[in-house]
């Protein structure tokens, strides 16, 4: 196995790899801040502990992925605290503030599932550094997904209209992140990942349907295909810029408090 590097790749494949990794890293950046913001809404002490732990892990993933991109000519300091809100590539799924506890749980579940699916495409990549990152993120996402599964089982047992509504609203945004069927998947073509974006999206769809195959839980969202407006940016894997209010939350406030 060979480590990917800036010198060994075409400009197109380098841009695609950096774009994909940055989409995961920035989504984890926003997700980590969501966890932090959600702490005070936890229903019990274990929620506070879990949300804080998941926040730390998510921001750790962000930094590890930024570090990985140094090998491709990216500047770590710039990635972490030099970019404006138009350059942040987090998924649209995480743009809006949660409207309820159910909405919050639905969104973090979909974000964890989506980012894991994206990273799982690199599990057999030719670059051992990227494989290691994918495995590390996977083992920790497993833990986070168990937290979401615990809450999901509680929602299944009670009145779950709010949960179903949140799921129906947010799921298309998770699917959207993987792009259109016609998108040219450079990383798949170049052998830099062994599962393409279309297959990853289908796997996400299957997994979410499997997770919600519970007695008495009626929800069918498979027909709700994602939509792509004119502002969809295939390189950033998102439409439009990060909302201003959200950017003020996720950007590092004090550079002196950040260690390189």
């Amino acid at each position: 196995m060979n480590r990917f590097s800036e010198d060994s790749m075409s400009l197109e494949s380098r841009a695609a790899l950096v774009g994909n990794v940055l989409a995961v890293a920035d989504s984890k950046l926003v997700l980590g801040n969501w966890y932090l913001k959600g702490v005070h809404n936890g229903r019990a002490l274990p929620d506070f502990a879990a949300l804080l732990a998941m926040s730390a892990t998510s921001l750790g993933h962000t930094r590890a992925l930024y570090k990985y991109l140094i090998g491709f000519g990216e500047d770590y300091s710039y990635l972490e605290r030099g970019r404006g809100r138009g350059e942040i590539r987090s998924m649209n799924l995480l743009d809006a503030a949660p409207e309820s506890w159910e909405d919050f749980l639905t969104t973090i579940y979909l974000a964890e599932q989506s980012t894991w699916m994206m990273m799982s495409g690199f599990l057999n990549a030719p670059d051992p550094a990227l494989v290691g990152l994918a495995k590390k993120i996977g083992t920790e996402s497993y833990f986070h997904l168990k937290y979401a599964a615990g809450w999901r089982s509680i929602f299944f047992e009670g009145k779950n209209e709010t949960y179903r509504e949140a799921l129906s609203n947010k799921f298309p945004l998770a699917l959207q992140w993987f792009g259109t069927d016609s998108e040219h998947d450079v990383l798949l073509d170049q052998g830099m990942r062994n599962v393409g974006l279309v297959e990853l999206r289908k796997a996400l769809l299957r997994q979410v349907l499997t997770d919600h195959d519970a007695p008495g839980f009626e929800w069918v969202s498979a027909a709700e295909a994602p939509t792509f407006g004119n502002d969809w940016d295939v390189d950033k894997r998102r439409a439009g810029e990060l909302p201003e209010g959200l950017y003020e939350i996720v950007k590092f406030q004090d550079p002196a408090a950040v260690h390189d």
Partner: protein
Amino acid sequence: MDDSDFRGVICPHCQSEQTELISLFGGSVSEALLRCKECQSIFNWVKWRGKLPPAPHDGGQGKQT
């Protein structure tokens, strides 16, 4: 509740494999709560076992790292 990741867990009190998951929220953040159908003991079980979530390449089964 059912979760294939917790099937066949051996009871730490009577070593029975007849155990079931009660809740994914155990005594601490990293633990789930299980019950032994043989001796009726309730016990915590660490839910993070270095496993990966299901992914396309493993047929959606999850995989040990």
